[in-house]
């Protein structure tokens, strides 16, 4: 069973970054790490391949400047290989451009299953997995909280407003996984050493047969008209508990007449 996992390399969320005043997009000139949301998909893929007893996990990523430190983390977890798409013309890419590029990269192999996170931790549009599915003319099950493979179909518990749906979907298909679907492993020392020699195929747009004018800034077809500070909430009262905090909370609730 060959599985492709789409992974994103993002600026460290602990250092949330800023908008570039020139281009009005997130500054990405910092070191990138593997988006934590993607570690669940990588883990899920590794477990499914293990259960199947054959096949391998391949990563697909798009990043500026051939950045691959985040990919190395996922390779160290156990993925076999990676495809990295990097091209100056991809600067300014929105979710649809990203989906076009990832779909083209996925199409270079014939995976049985394509996994992705439900949304990235920096852009959180949450549309890329289903856009990839549509571009590849594939079914998709989004917001999976459990996945199992039964022959030539996957059985997925899909999150809903009220609970979850049990969905069966024929392979090949795209599944987006929620955080917490599995417990991601930490890369072992051996894994980290092995990852250094695992193949990372580096591609540009020409290699994927994508015209530069259809993606990135040129393909964005949207513009930011305004960036403004959001109104701040008024700072409230902060007290240190001296054993009477519950009384303060009761008084606060009494004042609001909600008790």
């Amino acid at each position, binding site marked *: 069973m060959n599985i492709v996992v789409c992974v994103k390399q993002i600026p460290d969320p602990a250092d949330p970054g800023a908008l570039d005043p020139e281009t009005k997009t997130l500054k990405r000139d910092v070191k990138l790490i593997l988006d934590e949301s993607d570690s669940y998909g990588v883990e899920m893929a590794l477990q499914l391949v293990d259960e199947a007893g054959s096949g391998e996990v391949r990563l697909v990523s798009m990043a500026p400047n051939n950045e691959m430190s985040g990919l190395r983390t996922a390779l160290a977890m156990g993925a076999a290989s990676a495809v990295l798409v990097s091209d100056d013309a991809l600067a300014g890419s929105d979710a649809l451009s990203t989906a076009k590029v990832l779909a083209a990269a996925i199409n270079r192999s014939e995976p049985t299953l394509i996994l992705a996170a439900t949304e990235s931790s920096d852009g959180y549009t949450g549309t890329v*997995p289903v856009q990839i599915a*549509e571009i590849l003319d594939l079914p998709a099950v*989004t917001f999976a909280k459990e996945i199992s493979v039964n022959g030539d179909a996957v059985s997925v518990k899909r999150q809903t407003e*009220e609970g979850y749906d*049990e969905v069966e979907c024929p392979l090949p298909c795209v599944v987006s996984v*929620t955080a917490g679907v599995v417990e991601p492993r930490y890369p072992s020392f051996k894994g980290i050493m092995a990852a250094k020699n695992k193949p990372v195929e580096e591609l540009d747009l020409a290699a994927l047969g994508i015209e530069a004018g259809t993606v990135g800034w040129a393909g964005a077809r949207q513009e930011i008209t305004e960036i403004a500070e959001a109104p701040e909430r008024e700072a409230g009262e902060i007290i240190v*508990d001296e054993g009477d905090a519950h009384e303060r909370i009761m008084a606060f609730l009494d004042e609001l007449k909600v008790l």
Partner: protein
Amino acid sequence: MGISTIWIYGEATNGVVSTTTLELITGARQLADTVEVIVHGDASSLASQLGEYGAASVKSIGDLGESLAGPQVASAIASAVSEGNGPEAVLCATTYDGRDVAGRLSAKLDVPVITNVVELKVEGDRLLGVEPVFGGTTNVTTGFTGSGTAIFLVRPKSFEAESSGGSAANVDAIQAGDTGNTNTSVVKDRFVEETTGPKLDEAAIVVSGGRGLGEPDKYEMIESLAKLLKAAPGASRAVVDSGWVPYSYQVGQTGKVVKPTVYLACGISGATQHLVGMKGSANIIAINKDEEAPIFGVADLGIVGDVHKVLPELISALESRG
């Protein structure tokens, strides 16, 4: 000038239109001359609710049976657009199915989606979406530059649902058209996770617990407190990911957006992911050990203290009030 027609992807459960859909219709009717809603399921029973909130007509795909909504709804809208009968803008709510519809429609029409929108504005003859970034400290306004149908994913609770007093909307059939290989998923079964008390996104008081509770058993304090306050229990992503409580409890970017009268955050540090889901609350009380926790930046009453001491005291104080 102005917007002539907006379509909304309408969601309903057991014949009742979702509050989020009613919010979108309320918002859209201020922005466009005509608001139309595309639905599946029993359209005739939904038509009166949709009309009451301002929908001029309902486009019905019919019963989807065991299919997922995304492929057929997106295909129906895309077909209408390609035949020249489409709207200027399509609004979907940031829900599970709403994202599927918007994503597939975007790829079909080759038009990007403006996501995480909390406010819509009309500028000339185009619609602009306002998206909060960096945990809501900055608002970014975006519009489409190309021609064709604009697609927006709007977050729940961005508008307040208000009846327009309209009469039942007309129902017209709309065809899903060719969905290719995309519509092959089958919903085998649906499970409802029972929760007692008020619904998380409708409750006047929400009591949420986070990692600061230490261990899963301690979440019982949140449940007891919620019961005493007639509140809904909620949780941060950290404890949901750790499996303490079901996903339906999650407040935040990936969970529910809540705007209760009182939000009580217990042992929650206030990651961006969480703040986005609750900072619209009218009053926020936070209890956390770490005085540097970001949650104190939005709290009206911040308690620097141990939830394991404060919560039992608070619970017994409420119990003694009866």
